[in-house]
């Protein structure tokens, strides 16, 4: 097996006539922890969606031997309807989708994995809670538990720590580090540079195009960050708005 998990070449995505990201090329290596950083509206989520095949993109994405089921995706918490009457256990069990599919029942194996995952994220005994009754941090733990049950080789996390309390950030960071030890590949959109420096060895700095992609120390320099900011402003406010609407 090659050392590269996902390789992108000249990847571009547009919303209507508005380009969101342009000419992104690079590779995520097996077992690497990569943070994706960049200004707001600079195409970070779009890039993840392109990786997941959710938006149509030009250029190539080479997932190698990875199948869709090998990639675990953590959506932005805001994209989830939390008023829906469903329990924590039900959400976490969805992680066993590749075993149960659209119609299959929840196996006892999946139930055991669900309990274990809840324990790992520090939500023991919360399985019967309604997801609406959880705090933002607790809900993020639930989504991580679902990823644990999914047991995916590659984990794609879209803003896992936005609006989450520091205790939860700490606990969930331990899970990410455990994933690294297990040889899984983690790709995460993050905003907190200190956290990126502390946990993520590699960084992709994105501002509609690649500003830097490599070891975090080399990428997160003042020069690069200023360039990213300048480029994002140059891209224009109207672009951001249209992107938001799309």
């Amino acid at each position: 097996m090659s050392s590269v998990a996902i390789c992108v070449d000249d990847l571009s995505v547009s919303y209507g006539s508005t380009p969101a990201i342009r000419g992104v090329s690079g590779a995520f290596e097996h077992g690497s922890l990569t943070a994706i950083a960049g200004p707001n509206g600079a195409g970070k989520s779009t890039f993840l969606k392109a990786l997941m095949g959710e938006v149509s993109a030009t250029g190539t994405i080479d997932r190698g031997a990875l199948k869709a089921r090998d990639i675990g995706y953590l959506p932005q918490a805001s994209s989830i309807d939390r008023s829906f009457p469903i329990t924590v256990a039900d959400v976490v069990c969805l992680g066993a989708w590749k075993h149960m599919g659209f119609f299959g029942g929840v196996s006892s194996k999946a139930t055991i994995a669900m309990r274990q995952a809840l324990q790992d994220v520090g939500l023991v005994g919360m399985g019967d809670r309604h997801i609406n009754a959880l705090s933002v941090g607790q809900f993020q733990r639930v989504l991580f538990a679902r990823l644990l049950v999914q047991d995916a080789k590659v984990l794609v996390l879209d803003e896992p720590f936005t609006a989450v309390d520091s205790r939860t950030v700490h606990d969930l960071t331990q899970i990410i580090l455990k994933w690294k030890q297990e040889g899984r590949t983690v790709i995460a959109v993050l905003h907190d540079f200190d956290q990126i420096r502390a946990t993520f060895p590699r960084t992709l700095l994105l501002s509609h195009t690649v500003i830097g992609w490599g070891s975090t120390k080399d990428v997160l320099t003042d020069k690069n960050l200023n360039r990213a900011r300048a480029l994002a402003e140059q891209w224009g406010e109207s672009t951001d708005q249209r992107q938001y609407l799309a």
Partner: protein
Amino acid sequence: MTLFSLLISPFVDYGFMRRALVATLAIGLSSGPVGVLLMLRRMSLVGDAMSHAVLPGAAIGFMIAGGLSLPAMGLGGLIAGLSVALLSGLVSRVTSLREDASFASFYLMSLALGVMIVSLHGSNLDLLHVLFGTILAVDNSALFLVGGITSCTLLVLAMVYRPLIVECIDPGFLRAVGGRGAVFHFIFLLIVVLNLVSGFQTLGTLMAVGMMMLPAAIAQLLSRRLTTMLMIAAASAVVSGYVGLVLSYYLSVASGPTIILVCSFIYILALLFGPNGFLWRMVRPVSHNL
């Protein structure tokens, strides 16, 4: 006459009442759960829009069959309802109009067309029958159709239950595991239209949606668990169907509005006395216990 015979004599004495009862119970069994899912998908008003949108198709079917024929009206209604749903979906993807806005435009267009067709070719009485239903017309073929729609609805809902719910809570996750949300959305819309069609004869096109939304609202007031909600919705729809038919028989009033009013009455009871209802709030302070 005993109370018991009062409650069953209309159905023992008259075949049309028996058929109406079977039809109404079948409609309730499937419409209630469909309504719960509509409401949870934040599509409450889509059901309403659809019930108006089916009118021109139902009217044309009414004209061609020369009366209240469920198969003819159903087919017409199905075509009209699905056209409106598809066109709205298409317009919202191509233009900047949101889906609810394009739904509103198309269903109003459809409703106006329907009323015009009926008034050009029929009497006011016909229009009233189409809009509010008449139980006298429920024949055996209509019963088979209603029963078939109910069976199909419950089977299909059981099959698409998981993806349908996941698409609603977390569409990104469904796409990530390889599910096409739009497919399940469309299957669900198809089920909604079929259930509206099924309510044509006993309830009428306008009242049929009441059999979906009111039981769903009752269920939401009484429970926070999805499976319980689905059961409460089906049960309250079935109960209102039966009570509504008995009342409409003794009071000699139209069955559709009576059934929906009975359902509304249960809704008001749930509003007042339900666990989240007004009275409880006044009697006991909000509990902060875990």
